[in-house]
């Protein structure tokens, strides 16, 4: 794919979401990646043109953020968390196994173009360590065997489903979602998994709960008839 009039129109729709046009730059760069597979010079030029910035100003933003790629990543961009906790719990072993299997290192793409690898930092899923991602969908509680299987399936084009999300789409599909265009997949995956409900489960089993809610809210005292500017009241008390 390339940057088309349609792309420009969609970029314009992003600009219109913000009080100041430049705030749309990060979403616009995600949009560029969804079209081009990377932030290309043409994409930088389009953003600069639309926002009245120089190409250098846009490029300066691009190079600051790790999710913007200046060269094409794989159809499936796989991250392995090697920050301390994941690394210790098995992330380092997973990284070594995947790197050896694919014959690529950090920020490199497999020969068939299917999978690229990145050593990622903390993914805010430490209770599910060791954690991986594929196109920024979570793959929790991994071990070496499962990690290898995931990558094999991705290479073969077989279905891989996130442990807390949908079937994993292509890098360009996910970038479009990050740009701000809904893909209708929010309902996929569980509301929460057993790790997320670990405390709730324990509380239920041991009859623990928060203190009961009082009958009245402090806002029940507020008169329900103040439909317009309520600023004239000083306080209503509680």
């Amino acid at each position, binding site marked *: 794919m390339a940057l088309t009039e349609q792309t420009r129109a969609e970029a314009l729709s992003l600009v219109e979401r913000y009080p100041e046009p430049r705030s749309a730059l990060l979403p616009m760069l995600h949009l560029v990646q969804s079209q081009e597979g990377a932030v290309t010079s043409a994409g930088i030029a389009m953003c600069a043109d639309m926002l009245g910035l120089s190409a250098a100003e846009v490029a300066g933003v691009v190079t*600051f953020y790790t999710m913007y790629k200046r060269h094409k990543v794989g159809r499936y961009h796989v991250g392995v968390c090697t920050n301390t906790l994941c690394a210790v719990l098995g992330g380092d072993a997973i990284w070594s196994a995947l790197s050896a299997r694919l014959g690529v290192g950090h920020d490199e793409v497999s020969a068939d173009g299917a999978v690229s690898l990145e050593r990622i930092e903390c993914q805010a899923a430490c209770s599910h360590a060791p954690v991986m991602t594929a196109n920024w969908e979570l793959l929790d509680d991994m071990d070496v065997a499962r990690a290898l299987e995931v990558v094999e399936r991705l290479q073969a084009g077989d279905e891989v489903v996130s442990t807390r999300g949908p079937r994993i789409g292509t890098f360009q599909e996910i970038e479009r979602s990050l740009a701000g265009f809904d893909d209708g997949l929010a309902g996929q995956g569980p509301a929460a998994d057993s790790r997320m409900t670990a405390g709730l489960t324990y509380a239920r089993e041991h009859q623990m709960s928060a203190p009961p809610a009082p009958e009245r809210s402090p806002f029940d005292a507020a008169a329900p008839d103040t439909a317009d500017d309520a600023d004239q009241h000083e306080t209503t008390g509680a």
Partner: protein
Amino acid sequence: MALTPVLTAHWDEADSFTLAGYRRHGGYDMVEKVLSAPPDDLITVVKDSGLRGRGGAGFPTGLKWSFVPQGDGKAHYIVINADESEPGACKDIPLMLANPHALVEGCVLAAHAIRASHAFIYIRGEVVHAVRRVRAAVAEAYAAGFVGQNILGTGIGVEIVVHAGAGAYICGEETALLDSLEGRRGQPRLKPPFPAVAGLYACPTVVNNVETIANIPTIARNGAAWLRTMGTEKSPGFKLFSVSGHVERPGVYEAALGTTMRELLEYAGGVRSGHELKFWIPGGSSVPMLMPEHLDIPMTYEDMQGAGTMLGTATAMVFDETTSVVKAISRWMHFYKHESCGKCTPCREGTFWLEQMLERFERGHADLDDIAKVDEICRQMFGRNFCALGDAAATPYAPALKHFRDEFVAGTHTAADDLFDPVAATIFAAAAVGSGGAS
């Protein structure tokens, strides 16, 4: 103290993240009531409740709101910091996945309090499903009339924009987040002026953490006195704790502030079978580590400070005796070096050297006088940067050295992986060993 599920109370329902699931338990009931009352009423309730920011610093939320100047004729903004990236922190992402509507309702209520007509939810880009869930929740709330213009006929309007970041830990720092939201490199600003006076687009802005804002509907519903039945005088309320690492049941544990790590460990099934606690970190890699003798200290802002550390994000990491402290610190130094934005010299250069020197210890190639040299670099960095990232990078080493000096001395001749078999520390090794040997 005990577990107190509030925000997590319905996460075991399959539709907890939908409008229907949230409404079933009184969700959005407070919108009409709060928006019909003067904005200062909510500020007063939140102030009285003593709610403190859940992003790590613990600043009183009501006080922060009250700093926003009124009648200044400028646009006001509320910005939600959903850039959760602190190593160890895993509470905001689960909240956004399972209960995004609490955040959305909180946004509407908080926007009213500070007279903002626009809210932005800045979510880190690396967790796309959290972005989807929050975006879908906002869309549902718009369709139901809880967000948008003239909400429920109150005449009050709040627009919410969901914004995905692009991979930068530093954007969790509030002024860097604002620069990023303005479409720039995410670099911290000099303060003052604080965001309450000159924030987004140089307008008065409140930046609050996800969990802080998700607390607001419940506090509005149940009142300040109810919140204060949990926690302590200086740390009232409930908190999303998490426990990760070498424990039997890692996960999210919502409990009253003041709960101890010993209690949290019990809920989490204890340190994994056949092993013992070596050290733990109460609230993210940026706060000093604690030892087994600290398990009975209440997890409050003030008690953790008294113990020489910080509550931080209250997301505990637990490491057992198979862990190399040198390797743990070394990896965190790599992280801070990777994430330093480069604006301030002490942080940019300091993290660059810390990473390399810790790697020498990890490989067993350090010199004995490197032990003092690393300490000196940390001292030179601390307090000399625009934001706290440099301080955070300078923090872990000293307590690690204090408790495990032998391991750093060993780093002058023996690699960390030779001292501590990395296979033994993995959880899959534990599964193999544990199933055969334990209990």
